[in-house]
């Protein structure tokens, strides 16, 4: 038991997060060219030379999507616990790993949830950060997602989820598996309230998140360069003892097999979301009754 309560920091987009980055140049992992970091950042973290997509951190992603100055962190002040006393092979305790991720990213958690305007439409946004233990879903992410969906349902704001995750957080054992069920149970609130849910899958959206909340959007988009799938490539290759095709589990694969509605370039995502939201602009005028209840009631009146 810690004597001093750990502190919880809410995200402010005006404050820099993460460690200071002193290098000005980086080498693109795809084309090998040296590129000016500032140029990369201005280009939505896309290589200006070859168009390769680099990771977006959650704050960068939010900055890219929302109207300036409108983002408000609505997360609950909670932090990871270690119910299993989990230590990996090197004997590193789980909470040390969390602390290290916090220091490296400047974030409290692997997910940021907030209110914001997107082209003047007010939305609830949940964005995962892959740098934070692979953006994996444990009890904290599960609770933040449920909280975000609760607020979205209560305030009738569209819910947008941007996934970037390896899946369940194994260090929390069975409880991480249960976050799949927990988040899906909360998805009912959106349905009951008639709130649209747009799920955006980016590199990567795999494992327990792909097999739960990311896969039940009303509309599902994939960002170009996304990796979408349940089992990892290595596991599958070991199982079937065959080399997998290049495009396996890519954005193209997901689109061709019908998992996602569209594949979008990063720079077009904000505009696309805004366009989709326009179709749902009239929802506040519609009846709030869940569909099942309406069907049931109409059946009754018919009998009479």
């Amino acid at each position, binding site marked *: 038991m810690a004597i001093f309560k750990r502190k919880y920091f809410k995200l*402010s987009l005006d404050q820099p997060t993460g460690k200071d980055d002193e290098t000005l140049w980086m080498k693109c992992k795809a084309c090998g060219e040296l590129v000016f970091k500032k140029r990369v950042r201005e280009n939505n973290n896309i290589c200006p030379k070859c168009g390769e997509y680099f990771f977006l951190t959650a704050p960068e992603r939010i900055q890219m999507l929302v109207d300036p100055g409108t983002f408000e962190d609505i997360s609950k002040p909670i932090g990871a616990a270690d119910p299993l006393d989990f230590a*990996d092979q090197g004997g590193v305790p789980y909470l040390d790993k969390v602390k290290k991720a916090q220091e490296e990213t400047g974030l409290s958690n692997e997910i940021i949830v907030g209110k914001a305007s997107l082209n003047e439409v007010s939305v609830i946004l949940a964005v995962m950060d892959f740098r934070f233990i692979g953006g994996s879903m444990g*009890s904290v992410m599960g609770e933040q997602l449920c909280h975000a969906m609760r607020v979205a349902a209560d305030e009738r704001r569209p819910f947008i989820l941007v996934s970037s995750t390896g899946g369940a957080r*194994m260090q929390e054992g069975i409880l991480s*598996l*249960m976050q799949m069920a927990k988040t899906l149970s909360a998805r009912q609130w959106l349905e009951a309230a008639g709130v649209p849910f747009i799920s955006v899958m980016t590199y990567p959206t795999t494992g327990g998140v792909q097999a739960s909340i990311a896969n039940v959007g009303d509309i599902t988009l994939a960002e170009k360069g996304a990796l979408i799938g349940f089992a990892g490539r290595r*596991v599958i290759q070991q199982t079937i003892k065959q080399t997998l095709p290049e495009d396996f589990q890519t954005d193209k694969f997901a689109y061709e097999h019908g998992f996602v509605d569209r594949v979008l370039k990063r720079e077009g995502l904000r505009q696309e979301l805004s366009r989709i939201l326009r179709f749902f602009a009239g929802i506040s005028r519609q009846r709030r009754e869940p569909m099942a209840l309406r069907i049931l009631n109409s059946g009754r009146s018919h009998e009479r």
Partner: protein
Amino acid sequence: MSDKRIVELERKIRELRTFSEDGIDLSAEIEKLEAKLQTLKEQLPPVPAPTTPDEWDQVKLARNPKRPYTLDFIRLMMDDFYELHGDQMYADDAAIVVGLALFEGETVVVVGHQKGRDVTENIRRNFGMAHPEGYRKALRALKLAERFGFPVISLIDTPAAYPGTGAEERNIGGAIAQNIYEMFKLRVPIVIAITGEGGSGGALGLGVGDRVLMLEHAIYSVIPPEGCAAILFRDASKAPEAARAMKVTAPTLLELKVIDEIIPEPGEGAHTDHETTAANLKEAIRRHLKALERIPLEKLLEQRAKKFQAMGVFEELEETHARE
């Protein structure tokens, strides 16, 4: 590990107690049986103090190929079983069986993973590792149950959902997500029993319900121990260490409130006595279904959601403004 006679007596006492709840006074009979149980216990050699079972030993027990499988449980617990085949979209996945059954004279829908007993059957059943069509077939059966108000019994025993190309091409993750979501909305009581291996999303895809029971030597984990070992310990052969780190056995799961009840297994484990194992499970399922039937539907669905909403452990922190 307890004596078969003791297990049998304890089960009878629980049964009588259930009857008592219905207003029949059976206290005299219960007392008699309890006295008998006491004598029996005293006659037995002293049992060593219960020690926490080793996680890896439990994994091996849960995977014992002689354990009763879903169709064994169905044969031993149900009066009739009418198996349904196919997801009506793509194929019939033999790694999951579904059908209508008579349980204590009432119609129920049973869904469950099915492993094979020999090589031929295991190839056909893919070692109990289902493809998306298996989960979609189960969903079809769940919807059937809902239309007619039949309670659902789901028996879980799978190493994992199948990690293969076909499964990925047909969106195994999506099929699992859909089942979990629909199980929250299903307007009939659902009782889950983890009978062997509760492997990851492949288990949870049939695993949302009002009660979650678990056999004494079954396991339930977020990823198979080998998978966890390969990723976190960088060596699949470290599966025993991974199992110990993840804590995959029933007592921990009960403590974490992921399951509601542990079903005792006879002797050295379920593989030694299918009949008693099935009888113990049957008694528990019957008792829970009976209790669930009394709960109004809206309340039942609310409780089901709340049960899973409560799962997770985190620390409440002191809130501060943005980092200085």
